[in-house]
């Protein structure tokens, strides 16, 4: 009986202590709602996507200051898919299956979105996609807070036809699904408006392309046939930098051959010498130079958060602002973060946008946005030269492509279909 060491007490203490620690760990784990951020922080798209990650961190911090969501704090989970499209799918799976995030805010290129789409549909996650895209898609699990072609590409072409009397068109894009599909839509639109096929020049380059000598030279030649010529650019990522540099070096001024870009905003201009680019255009639904009290407050909060007065705001940031606030409102309405319930609650939700108006989530998972056309200024900001009188509702299926003009998307019950053919009355068109 010499070893009658009473280890019951210390053992009990140990177990109780462990239990308390475990329960507090569990409790603190239950205290946060995880939000996934899926943006490239390296590679060719880092120039555009890094700032979106920072914007999301700011929005999450601001929401936590207001008390979080459903009484819990929001926790940001950031991953880096490195401009690698298959890695986007892997990282999406990691966010949904392992990290168990309630919603994901991410992606930029359409090829990255197409890569993650099967993952979100399989694991029933929610993706808020903030970037302008080519349409021809409407998924139950994706909310498209960026512009559809009828909210960006078509109004830009209309502006050039009306204001600059453009008769010849160069459609220059990076070689992947977004520029290819957008150019298909634009070509059909231009031909429908009476532009001849020989007055349209279409050209594709790989991501990161840096040798623009021949192409810019061809643009100059194409523009010297006596008719006013414009370039519609769907060039994405850092290939824009040598492209604009070559335009400047060859002396192509915006007054002679204007370039309207759909993927170049304040962030991309920050890495360029913008003096030779003054007058070139961009079409978006928001510019930092928009004058409204909401925007002034947003810019002030952003500069304080990022601790850098020189950082700029841009359209995809506004899309995340709208998307995040819509998600928060929908979760509060549904009382849960369950994707199906949030998906049902979010349709019809209306939140303020940064131009002083409101944005509403439509049944096709697109939102209403104003269309703005801006000219590049010497300081890298945009001067707004045109804005639509009201809001334009995003149209997922383009009316100018024969296979998609009969398709509509409506995710409300009982239709619950992303590609319903109104002519045949059946769900399941492809639009291709």
């Amino acid at each position: 009986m010499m070893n009658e060491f009473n280890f019951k007490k210390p053992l009990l203490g140990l177990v109780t202590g462990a239990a308390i620690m475990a329960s507090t760990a569990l409790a603190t784990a239950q205290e946060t709602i995880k939000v996934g951020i899926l943006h490239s922080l390296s590679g060719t798209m880092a120039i555009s996507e890094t700032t979106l990650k920072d914007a999301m961190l700011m929005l999450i911090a601001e929401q936590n200051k207001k008390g979080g969501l459903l009484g819990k704090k929001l926790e940001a989970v950031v991953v880096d898919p490195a401009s690698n499209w298959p890695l986007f799918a892997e990282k999406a799976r990691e966010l949904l299956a392992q990290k168990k995030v309630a919603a994901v805010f991410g992606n930029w290129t359409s090829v990255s979105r197409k890569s993650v789409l099967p993952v979100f549909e399989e694991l029933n996650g929610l993706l808020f996609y903030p970037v302008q895209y080519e349409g021809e898609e409407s998924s139950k699990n994706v909310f498209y807070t960026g512009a559809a072609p009828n909210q960006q590409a078509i109004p830009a072409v209309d502006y050039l036809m009306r204001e600059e009397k453009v008769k010849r068109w160069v459609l220059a894009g990076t070689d992947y699904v977004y520029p290819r599909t957008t150019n298909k839509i634009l070509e059909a639109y231009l031909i429908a408006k009476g532009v001849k096929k020989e007055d349209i020049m279409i050209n594709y380059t790989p991501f990161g392309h840096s040798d623009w000598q021949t192409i810019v030279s061809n643009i100059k030649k194409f523009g010297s046939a006596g008719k006013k010529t414009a370039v519609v650019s769907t060039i994405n990522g850092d290939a824009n930098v040598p492209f604009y540099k070559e335009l400047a070096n060859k002396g192509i001024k915006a007054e002679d051959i204007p370039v309207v870009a759909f993927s170049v905003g304040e962030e991309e201009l920050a890495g360029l010498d913008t003096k030779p680019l003054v007058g070139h255009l961009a079409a978006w639904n928001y510019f930092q130079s928009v004058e409204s009290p909401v925007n002034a407050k947003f810019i002030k909060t952003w500069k304080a958060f990022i601790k850098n007065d020189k950082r700029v705001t841009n359209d995809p940031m506004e899309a995340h602002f709208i998307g995040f606030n819509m998600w928060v409102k929908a979760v509060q309405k549904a009382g849960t973060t369950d994707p199906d319930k949030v998906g049902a609650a979010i349709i019809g939700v209306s939140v303020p946008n940064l131009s002083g108006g409101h944005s509403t989530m439509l049944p096709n998972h697109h939102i209403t946005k104003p269309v703005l056309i801006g000219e590049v200024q010497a300081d890298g900001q945009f001067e707004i030269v045109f804005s639509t009188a009201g809001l334009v509702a995003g149209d997922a299926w383009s009316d100018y492509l024969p296979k998609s003009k009969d398709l509509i998307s409506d995710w409300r019950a009982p239709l619950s279909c992303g590609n319903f053919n109104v002519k045949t009355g059946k769900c399941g068109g492809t639009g291709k």
Partner: protein
Amino acid sequence: MKTPKNILCLGLLFLIGLMASSPVTTAFAQDFSTLVDGLNQKSFSKKIKAVEVIAASGHERVVPVLTALSENRLYFRRHDKKIFIVKSSDSGFALTDAVTGEGAGEAPKATFKKIRTNNRLRRTIRATLGGLTLLSKDDAIRLNAAKSVFKSGDQGALATLEKALKAEKSDEIKQAMLDARAAIIIKSDADEAAKITAIQHLHKVGGADVMSMLSPLASDKNPKIAQAANTAIKEIKDRQALWNGVQNAIYGLSLGSVLLLAAIGLAITFGVMGVINMAHGEMVMIGAYSTYIVQDLIRTSAPGLFEYSLFIALPVAFMIAGAIGIAMERGIIRFLYGRPLETLLATWGISLVLQQAVRTIFGPNNQKVGTPSWMSGSVELGEVAITLNRLYIILFALAVFAALYIIIRQTTFGLQMRAVVQNRQMAGSMGIRTKWVDALTFGVGSGIAGIAGVALSQIDNVSPNLGQAYIVDSFMVVVFGGVGNLWGTLVGAFSLGIANKFLEPYAGAVLGKIFVLVFIILFIQKRPRGLFALKGRAVET
């Protein structure tokens, strides 16, 4: 008694006349002020009309006001809407009254709002100013005016142009004015003979702008005019096709020089040691980042040296890349000789480490590397525009090649290197320290890659992934041109560049590269050692 009455009437009339005329002169000044206020409207179409009215007024302040507007320097004061020409100063804006031209002191920027312009408005102003400044005393302004009238074909400028032509002394400006007159005449309703003379004049001028002007005339109702225009257009097109070929050749040389710079270091290391160095692209990237660091230092401590920043960056990049190369060789690669697959893997791993190291130190985003002013812009050779930075890169690549050639042919180190390439065993028996030759060769090869990075920073984005874009091209050039052979690399690089550029107009950038790659694969089947294979009995396989 009638005379005093007449004098009185006359006097009264005179007084009335006097009184009537002075409001006219003040009204004239007031009118101009109202016209200038007309620029501050929301609609761009209304602004364009206001510009046209101002130009027609003939007031002496028209040119300064319109020039300021086209340069986005015309602002209005928020509280009284008075319009000023502004210039940035330390405390805000230095103001000039738009209507009177007098200085109006300084004021903070927030009290003013810019009068917006867009492309169409600026184009209208440019055309208008062209017509207005033809009689300027300044040579440069007159030349610019003649050129912009040529571009716009503005009918209203014809009278001023004729006047300017009579007074013009300078040959160059006179020629520009004659071109401008021809451009106006073909758009006007002058008679057939005048139009045909104008077409023939423009025919001699040639160029893309002339093509734009003559194209609408090709379908003119008058058959003689249409024929003259068509002949001119056809001949200009033929000339353009010829210059197109020249352009493709020059752009091919430019692309080839980029390939040469990237590949020449690899040719040496691959040739001397048979080491497949997958980290070669990262040496180029490190050279580009060295340029960024040097420019950053210059920007903060000695801004006056910016024009020479590239020259300063060259030895810095060489040293840094060379040092890393020697470290790589001494630390890792020398243990893996004779094991090509392991070397491949090891150098691939080193490339990843280097990329991530740069990403961690500098961040994953692109860094801005500026171009010195003597390298910006382009130069016209016939009808081909060559950007200056690419021209200098071609010359630089050839200079690097020449320097390397001299080192290899004329120095002891070069001799030792050649000996080791041809027969390592024999060279060792002759007393050459092959291990040191290996290390130094690797250092030189990496150093050259660093120098290439300095040049490439001018035409490509400086990012941690820069190396990835050039590694495949470098290997293609080395394999095609012949391993270990400088001339092979030169010929290989330039021929691949030119082939790529001639394919690009037909097949596009993506397909062009694929065709070139397929061509090299087929070529290697026939000649496995490349274009300039090393000959000799004792050459190791």
